[in-house]
């Protein structure tokens, strides 16, 4: 099934020129604009940005889950030398679950309430492998055990409503990882969970990812989660990538004012009771995008250059979409409160 043209340096996934339009004809708006990035085998990439910046749409586009009739997706998503966007529905079905899997914020909505947890894992396994019921059951129980669900054989025949939120998210991860995909897209997987459970789930994802060399694409609004779970940070704003850098480097010295702004508005980085530096205004809707730099209307550093569209500039160790990146020194997390 896999073409033999994979060479050692080729990343697992190479996305380039990805555009997503919602709506048809003259009413269409561009929700994702010229997004490009790579994910290497076993790499853990975090995508951050406010709601409405296109993080989830990017994830759904990779999964081929955007409705075909009302969205228009163009560009390239290369995996094993194949452009996933050119695959037909049947071929894409074989990729989904087997090569790329996705988990969501609210596991209750993603799980089917009328099937047991175990049946939902077996179903996925039998869709991708030629195996019998008994073997699917054994592998499903093993998958439940691998995600740390106690008494996996008993949980196999329980329904989603019988599980707690944290256990449901573990079950969701078990379904996603049962077929050993090479890329797992996790869309706000811990946002609905308590911090102590969140810590357990992040640890689980990290452990599974390092054991199976599964790459992770972590979609989140929480820079703390990205710091502890990811090695690379992609900041998205208004449908574009505005910064792509090593996580630690971006946290200490962000080069885009939006990354810096997101970081600085976190309460834990400012002294108690002091004013929080917020980012004024809100994300523009796709229908009323600014002509030049999309962040300029909210940016404290905007200058005359910002009236023109800004490309994603390659600086070698990172990419940044800011016309003034060379002259700005932006505050990062180093200016945090002294505990």
């Amino acid at each position, binding site marked *: 099934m896999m073409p033999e043209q994979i060479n050692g340096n080729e990343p697992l996934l190479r996305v380039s020129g990805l555009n997503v339009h919602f709506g048809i004809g003259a009413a269409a708006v561009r929700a994702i604009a010229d997004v490009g990035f790579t994910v290497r085998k076993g790499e853990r990439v975090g995508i951050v940005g406010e709601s409405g910046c296109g993080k989830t749409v990017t994830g759904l586009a990779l999964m081929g889950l955007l409705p075909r009739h009302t969205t228009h997706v163009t560009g390239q998503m290369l995996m094993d030398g194949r452009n996933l966007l050119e695959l037909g529905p049947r071929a894409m079905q074989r990729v989904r679950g087997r090569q790329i899997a996705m988990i969501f914020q609210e596991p209750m909505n993603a799980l089917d309430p009328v099937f047991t947890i175990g049946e939902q894992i077996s179903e996925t396994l039998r869709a991708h492998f030629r195996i019998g019921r008994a073997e699917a059951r054994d592998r499903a129980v093993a998958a439940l055990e691998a995600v740390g669900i106690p008494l996996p054989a008993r949980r196999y025949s329980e329904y989603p409503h019988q599980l707690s939120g944290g256990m449901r998210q573990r079950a969701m991860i078990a379904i996603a990882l049962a077929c050993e995909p090479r890329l797992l897209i996790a869309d706000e997987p811990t946002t609905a969970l308590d911090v102590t459970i969140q810590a357990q789930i992040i640890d689980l994802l990290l452990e599974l990812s390092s054991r199976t060399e599964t790459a992770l694409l972590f979609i989140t609004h929480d820079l703390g989660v990205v710091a502890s779970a990811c090695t690379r940070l992609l900041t998205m704003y208004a449908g574009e990538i505005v910064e792509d850098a090593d996580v630690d480097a971006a946290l200490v010295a962000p080069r885009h004012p939006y990354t810096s702004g997101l970081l600085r508005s976190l*309460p834990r980085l400012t002294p*108690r009771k002091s*004013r929080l530096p917020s980012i004024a205004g809100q994300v523009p809707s796709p229908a009323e995008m600014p002509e030049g730099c999309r962040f300029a209307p909210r940016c404290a550093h905007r200058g005359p250059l910002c009236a023109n569209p800004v490309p994603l500039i390659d600086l070698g160790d990172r990419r940044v979409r800011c016309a003034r990146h060379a002259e700005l020194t932006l505050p990062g997390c180093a200016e945090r409160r002294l505990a």
Partner: protein
Amino acid sequence: MSGEALVSVSGLTVHFPVRGSRETVKAVDGVDFTVAAGTTFGVIGESGSGKSTLGRALVCLQYPTAGRILHAGRDPFSLPGAALRRHRRDYQIIFQDPGAALNPRMTILDSVREPLDIARAGSARERAQQARAMLDRVGIGGMMHDRFPHELSGGQKQRVNIARALTVRPRLIVCDEVVAALDVSIQADILNLFADLQQDFGLTYVFITHDLAVVTHVSDMIAVMYLGRFVEIGPAETIHGNPTHPYTMALLSAEPEPLPRAMRSDRRIMLRGEIPSPIAPPSGCRFRTRCPYAEPICAAAEPPWRETTPGRFAACHFAGTGTHATLSEHEILAS
């Protein structure tokens, strides 16, 4: 800053019946604290800890099963109906979901004016004027006053909810996860607004949240809640800087820090399992089933309150005895 106690709570208990059973859900199970006027009292806990039930009881939306709540020395639950309704204007609550709290068929101006209409405060014209002034104060400009909730963003809707709670000039506002549904930059705006309004109107807040960073930022005092009880209570800076209850330590260490690897503390206390059922809480110390330091005494006896540093109390048999610190060092060595 700290004046007399605006709220004082003793032995507060709220139990809910379980359908088809004699058992009860012990949502709040014996809580004592006072909130000084003009200060912010933070309550932090996981879901199922009873923090929202506590908040509802504080503003008389929930009758206590036992115990007492005093508002500025008065017991609101002893007031007759009409007097209780009048009294409630002084004690308001704002909820997490800014959309669900607004009537989708009313303009935001009408929503903000409604509490004044119910209070029959002044003429209709004056009430509309007051509502407009309050919307302006929270940063919702005149051009938006006649819009409907669906035309506003989440942050704007939460501003409307704040304006609506403020129109009747309350003394206390219970903020139940008010920024949990908002993006970080909007969250920062709303937290700044709360700070300004506290200055301007001399407000007292009870800030209920699961977010440690938020509660530490806004609070003067913090109480950590677990399974219906407080386990640690004290000034915000001591709780955050130097927790003495193992549950507080675990919460703090679970918080993902937005810092590079080299700057993060590697002390992690990973809690096993999940919060037990509030129908049958564990005997003795309620945290013992998840506590990495539990000893036989924790199952046998309820831990007494210990003053671990001046003004800060922890309900743990070993708090302040150095046991936890030693164990943590062992863990670091082991990991």
